[in-house]
Structure formats: C-alpha cells, structure tokens
C-alpha cells in the first residue's frame, strides 16, 4: 500500500493548509491558508521542505496519527503541547518529544498530539509533503466551500493521507533554537479603510482598551469581547472587499478581525487593518487571550513586513543538529508544563 499517515482520531479541527490561494477573490473564493504562516514556514524548514509545502494545521486539540510508510520525518511547530510517540497502536506508554524539532518515525508508530495550552495553532509538517491535488493553485482547505486540502474538509478518523515519500531521507534531525512564537504586547494596525465611520474619541477608545478573544472565533474571523466601539455614521456601508486583518465593527460595536477564511466582501465599516507582519502572531492567539492594538504608519508596516520575511528567510540558519537527547523525559514533561498536573493528580489520589 502507498505511504500514508492514517488518522486514528482527528483532534478538534485539523485541516491541510499551505500559504493559501490568492487570485480568486474576484470570484468570491477566500484566500484561506495557514492562520500562522510563520509557524508553517518553520515546520517545513525543520523537515527540509519548500516553505509553502502543505502541512496539517491543528486547532487546540491535536490528532492521533499512525505511520503507514517505511518511515516518515515530521516536525511540530506552534503552541506548547505534549506529543507522545508510541512504537505501535497497542503500546500503552511511549516517549514524549518536543515541538520545534524534527523526528523520524518507523512504520507502525503512533503519534498522539495533545491539547495546546498557550496557543490555538500547531503545524505538523511531513518531509516531502502530502500527495494531494492542488485546487486553484493551492492545497489549502476552504471548509465552507469544500475546496482543496483533503476532500475539502477537516480530517476525520479513518482518513488515510497519502505521502509523497515512502521513507524519510537519510539525514540528521534538527531543532530550531531562539524562535519566538509569542504575541506582541500590542498588535500594530494601519487605520482605515473606513475609520471615518468612527469619531476620534471612539478611535482613541479602541486603542486604549484591551480585548479578549471570544468564543465563536474560527479560521474566518476572530471575535473580540470588550467595551463596544460607537459608530459615528451608522454601521452599514456599501459592501466592499475585505483585506486580511481587517477589523470590522458591526452594529453591536464588538470588533471582529477577519482572518484567512474571511468572506471576500462585506458591509460593515472597517476601523483598521492589522499589519501583515503581525498576522501570524494574531492567527495563533487562542480564545481567552488578551489583545490590544496600536496605530502605525504604512512605512512602519512595510518595514515590519520586511523584517519578518528576513527572519523567515534566515530560519534555516537557526537549525541545530539534534544530538542524543540530553533532556530526560521528566525534563520534557516539565517543558510541556505537565509535571505539576501529574503531581497534583497523585496527591489527590492519595
């Protein structure tokens, strides 16, 4: 049988994503693609892929996958998470591995990706990529349109994702050091396009306040909870196009930031637009996270974009060969912040 990763359990919402499908918004097709393209890029660097190779985007709760290939090389980049490797499906205990490093696994191995605890998003890249057809120039999954990725939908148990490579290439494993996946204290925005629908004091309020990422946020839009923003000229505009990171304010005054799967057009005024350099960090913010904004000029936004791209293009320089793991399982558990939970569990049992 051809090489594949078999889905034992899919996690909360696991989809295939790459850098998206620009060029079709005039037909109503969202761009889609990775919510956090920086982490996707890093995951691909770790397994030696071209940076835009499609990978699995995991939201909040990870999948359990079985290796049905001679061997595979995987890398996990994104939120902190416990990843357990079991030698086969019947094994009761396995080995914990870290994110931000590549790992080679043999046929029959089972990978159990746990729950993310500081982020919404994790990428699972596989060396060589998935052997899936491109839809309109991209392998990104557009869920509502049933387009791209794996049959246009999120993974379900029993899916068998075909791999390009039958076996991992013969090379060292690597880890990525000094990569910051944190969130900025304030997300930078460029005012507009419809900031003239808000009074100066309402705009000042928007920048002074702190918001919370609300339930109901998804790949299409991040909903923010907080004191409502008042409109000065109503909240209906003649529908126009929606850029990534647009912050629209509907009638209830609660801002909504439009993300990868955003509808191409919409009829609410958009107060500001998150700059392209800050979108990856925004995309990985989990429900409940605090978020605040600050205005910058276009020139600052372009400089930030240049800096982020420079950081991405030099990620391979941060690869460190993974020698025999010095860290013990306990250290890894501590790294995943699970020790206290286990200790607490035992003391309660006693």
């Amino acid at each position, binding site marked *: 049988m051809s090489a594949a990763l078999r889905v034992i359990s899919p996690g909360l919402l696991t989809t295939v994503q790459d850098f998206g499908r*620009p*060029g*079709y*918004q*005039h*037909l*109503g*097709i969202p761009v889609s693609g990775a919510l956090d393209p920086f982490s996707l890029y890093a995951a691909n660097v770790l397994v030696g892929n071209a940076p835009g190779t499609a990978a699995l985007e995991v939201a909040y709760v990870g999948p359990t996958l079985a290796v049905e290939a001679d061997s595979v090389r995987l890398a996990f980049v994104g939120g902190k998470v416990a990843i357990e490797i079991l030698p086969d499906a019947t094994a009761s205990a396995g080995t914990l591995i870290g994110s931000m490093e590549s790992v080679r696994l043999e046929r029959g191995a089972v990978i159990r990706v746990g729950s993310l605890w500081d982020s919404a998003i994790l990428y699972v890249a596989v060396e060589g990529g998935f052997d899936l057809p491109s*839809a*309109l120039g991209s392998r990104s999954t557009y869920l*509502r*349109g*049933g*387009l791209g990725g794996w049959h*246009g939908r999120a993974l379900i148990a029993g899916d068998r994702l075909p791999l390009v490579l039958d076996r991992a290439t013969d090379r060292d494993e690597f880890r990525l050091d000094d990569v910051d996946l944190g969130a900025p204290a304030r997300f930078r*925005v*460029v*005012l*507009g*396009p*419809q900031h003239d629908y808000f009074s100066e004091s309402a705009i000042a309020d928007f920048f002074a306040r702190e918001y919370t990422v609300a339930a109901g946020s998804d790949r299409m839009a991040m909903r923010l909870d907080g004191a409502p923003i008042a409109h000065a000229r109503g909240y209906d505009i*003649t*529908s*126009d*196009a929606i*850029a*990534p*990171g*647009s912050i629209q304010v509907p009638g209830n005054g609660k801002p909504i930031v439009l993300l990868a799967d955003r*509808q*191409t*057009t*919409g009829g609410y005024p*958009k107060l500001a*637009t*998150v*700059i*392209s350099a800050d979108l990856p960090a925004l995309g990985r913010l989990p429900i409940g996270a605090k978020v605040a904004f600050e205005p910058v000029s*276009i020139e600052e*936004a*372009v400089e930030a*974009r*240049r800096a982020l*791209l420079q950081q991405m293009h030099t990620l391979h320089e941060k690869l460190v060969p993974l020698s025999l793991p010095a860290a013990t399982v306990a250290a890894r558990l501590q790294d995943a912040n699970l020790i206290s939970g286990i200790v607490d569990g035992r003391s309660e049992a006693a």
Partner: protein
Amino acid sequence: MPDYRLLHAGDTALVVEFGQGIDRRLNAKVLALARRIEQNVAAGRLVGIVETVPTFRSLMVYYDPLVLNHAALAVRIDELVRDLQPAMQAGRVWRLPVCYDPCVAPDLEDVARRTGLTPTTVVERHSAETYHVYMLGFLPGQAYMGDLPAELDLPRRATPRLTIPAGSLAIAMNMTCIFPLQSPCGWHLIGRSPVPLWDGEAGKALLAPGDQVMFAPVSLREFDQLCAKVMARALKIEPIATGVGVAA
C-alpha cells in the same frame, strides 16, 4: 479631475473608491479599472500586483509592498483612472431558470405581506426585470444582482437563518442573489434555481461582473427535472448574448 479616493486597507491592499452606494455608473468605472490593471499586469507593465477585487463602488488592489511601493502604485492608478473608458466594458446576457413554487420559496408569502402585493405579483415583478451583476462575493460564484423593482425593496430579515439550501434565490436591500452553496443567510428566500453558479472542480464562476441576468420561471416539476440533469452533469447553461455594453 478623476473623481476617486485611495484608502489603505493595511500594508498589502489599497482601495480605489469611486463613490458611495450602488450605482451602475460607479460600478462600470470599477470594472473598467480592474480590466485596465489586468491588461497592464498581463503585458508586464505593472509588477507587484497580487490580485484585484471589484465591488459595487470600489476596486480592492492587493499588492506586494516590497515589490511595489504604495506611492508608486497610487501614481500608476491615477494614470489608469485618467483615461478609463467604462462604456467599453462588455457583459454577457443570461436567462436562468428559477422556481418560485412555495415549496422552495419559504419567504414568498411573507414578502408579499410586507410589500402589500400578492405572491403572484411578487413573482411577476421579480422575473420581469433584467438584472446587472455588480460583483461576486461572500461565497464562491455568488453574484450580487440589481436593481430590484422599488416595490420589492426590503431590509434584511431581523433574524438570519443559520443555513439555507444551495441555489436559494433571495432578495434584500435592493439586490437579488442566488446563493451557490449551503450557507447562513439573512435575506428573504423567494425561490430556488437549479443552475450551479460555481463549478468547484473547474474553479469557475458562471456569472461575472457586468453580465445581465433574466430569470425564467419554471414549475416545481421542471425544477426537479433540471436538478436531476445537474446531478447527471447534463445541464449546459450558455449565455443568450455576449458583448453587451454597459452604460457609463
């Protein structure tokens, strides 16, 4: 002087806004500029454009700011706007079958009540009009068509439906739409069309901005037969005319 303004939508998109409201003359300018940009990109005279998205009264221009500086883009847009010839925009004419039977038109009675017309008159008025496709958006292949006869103009429903079937024919805010996919919807549903507006496999939309659309009422029985043909991939919908000018 060219009558437009430029608005930043972040560092990778610029809005060229020709005015406010839904107006065919504004829309003709938008479509003409989109075409001019497309021609210049194709000819290699404009580098750094990612894509453009025409809407009712503005064109969104997505660009790579590390290739094309926003100030340089603004200069190029100004040159292109100055010699726009919106009247040259050509569109196709379509006649699309739609079924207004109450079985597939859950809001027809309600629309009749709100407009003070009978359901039959609502259908007559709606199907007598030739509509202009202003833009595609919201869902793949979804065309915003106008203008609705004034007597059918209604605001959106107070409570949107969480899901409506694909092919739903709907009206709201002076516009009519066929929703190509199952989706949430706050519009009034007055019928259903068997015609797939979006071909996911080919990645093609049936309608394009600038097209003209007429609706041909069919019975529920004919609707079912047409749906069966669609399922068997045996329904071919062609425009009844091409190259129709749009008033500037």
